């Protein structure tokens, strides 16, 4: 049961592996980028779930509540989400340029065309 108690970590690790697998195994550049996004999101979940205090409420001052969830990890991840969005935007912009230059977004095709 101890292992199940850490189910948030299992979820994060599972998602992380799915993301990394996509990045490595897929030849389609957009799919690679989506894999990268899933990988990053898994890390965000890891951060946010570690700030959770069982029985704590949202960190807003109010009458009658004394136990709050730690807001810092959530705030950090807000920054990391911005970074992740920016990475995706740059990645997609590069993919658009790749498609203009090669007329393909399949890694194998692109590498073959350069060898020709």
């Amino acid at each position, binding site marked *: 049961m101890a292992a199940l108690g850490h189910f948030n970590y299992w979820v994060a690790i599972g998602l992380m592996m799915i993301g990394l697998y996509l990045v490595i195994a897929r030849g389609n550049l957009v799919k690679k*980028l989506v894999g990268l996004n899933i990988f990053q999101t898994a890390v965000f979940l*890891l951060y946010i779930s570690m700030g959770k205090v069982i029985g704590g409420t949202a960190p807003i001052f109010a009458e009658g509540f004394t136990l709050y969830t730690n807001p810092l990890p959530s705030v950090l991840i807000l920054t*990391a989400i911005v970074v992740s969005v*920016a990475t995706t935007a740059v*990645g997609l912009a590069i993919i658009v*340029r*790749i498609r203009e230059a090669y007329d393909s977004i399949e890694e194998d095709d692109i590498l073959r065309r350069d060898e020709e």
Partner: protein
Amino acid sequence: MIASNLPALQVVVPLISAPICAMLGRGRTAWVLTVAVSWTALAIAIALLIRVETGGVIDYEMGGWAAPWGIAYRIDYLNAFVLVIVAGIGAMVAPAALQGIATEIAPERQPRFFAAMLLALTGLLGITITGDAFNLYVFLEIASLASYALVAQGPDRRALMAAFQYLILGTIGATFILIGVGLLYMMTGTLNMADLAARLPAVAETRTIYAAFAFIIVGTGLKLALFPLHMWLPNAYAYAPGVVSAFMAATGTKVGVYMLARFVYTVFGAPFAFDTMPLGQILMPFALLGIVVGSLVAIFQDDIKRMLAYSSVAQIGYMALGISFASETGLIATIVHLFNHALMKGALFLALAAVSLRLGKTDLTAMRGLGRRMPLTMAAFVAAGLSLIGVPLTAGFVSKWYLVKAAIEAGLWPVAVVILGASLLAMIYVWRVVEVAYFRAPAANAPAAVEAPTTMLIPILILAGGGIYFGIDTEVTVGIARAAAMALLGTSP
């Protein structure tokens, strides 16, 4: 007022200038601003280094929020020195950039190119100056995102795939660091590096901290292109615009090495990294492999830019090797080599940018007889090349000397032999260029090439001259490196 806020200005000035640069309509105006900003950054970095030398460690609280809640900047000998390296290379590359990208990037895209360059400078300076682990991640991503954009500007379409690969591997590396920092926060409840160092020993013997260490080392390994995590580097450097290669090769990986040293020695501490965790046994073989494989592969490259990229993999091996000794001499070697390698690779890649401007390509056959047509550029190339080999009276010799000394101190004779053997390999690949440039007649249909434009030539000559000067006068660099190494190891001078 300004003097007390120098640590913030170091990062804020280039950061604010980047969007202004992007909004400027013309490449030349943006260039003037970039040059002004990069020289301001260098002036600030030098002022900070002098202040560290006279007054000791500078602690700066961003926005007046006290650490550990606010973001603290902490400047000691090591990062003050790395700041000077990064800002110095920025100040050398920026003037050369206008001519360097003239044929590679369309005029209407030039302002945005300069904006990306300033952002990369911001990120690299930020990584170096910050004393907060999460802040480091944010600056790392600023620097990386700007670098992906810069690499993608390369004239060849293969630059796009190189940038995409760099983006994938760079993001994985940065995310690994993010995981590591998160695990550290989980166990200690702080992100401030000084605080982390104080609180880690109490919880060091836990699997969470072991995992955090592993994630951070692999993440920084990806960022600094430590063999075998260097797969992104050769293509990125080979296809990026010439001045971008010069800027990234001389700063990006240096900051990566700085991150590694900072995490290993300041945050985790040498006893944890080398006794509890087997960092020395892992880092040293990979560093040596990187040195040998990088140098060997470099010999067989026909494109000189790609050759220098593989040579960078080897040189990064030298720096990682110095860290893996966990000794004062080893650290001195690494820190001195940070500086020396920035000088020589900056000079070499800038010289190649000038060659590429005049010839349109940088492969070996095109460079036949170039020694006569671009005498000053090629003379600088040779001087920096000698430094790369480690010939006495060049800067490269100083770092190799300390590295060999560290290997002998550690009783590792075979390592010293590998270091010296790899110098011979470096001699082969530098010689290939020298032979072609000086002892072959140019091809009959070769384009007429003249000397590089003055704005490029002066930085090239300054960097190459620096490589000689700091090989003869070693007092400044070794003195600072010694103080930095002592601070890292926690031994007072």
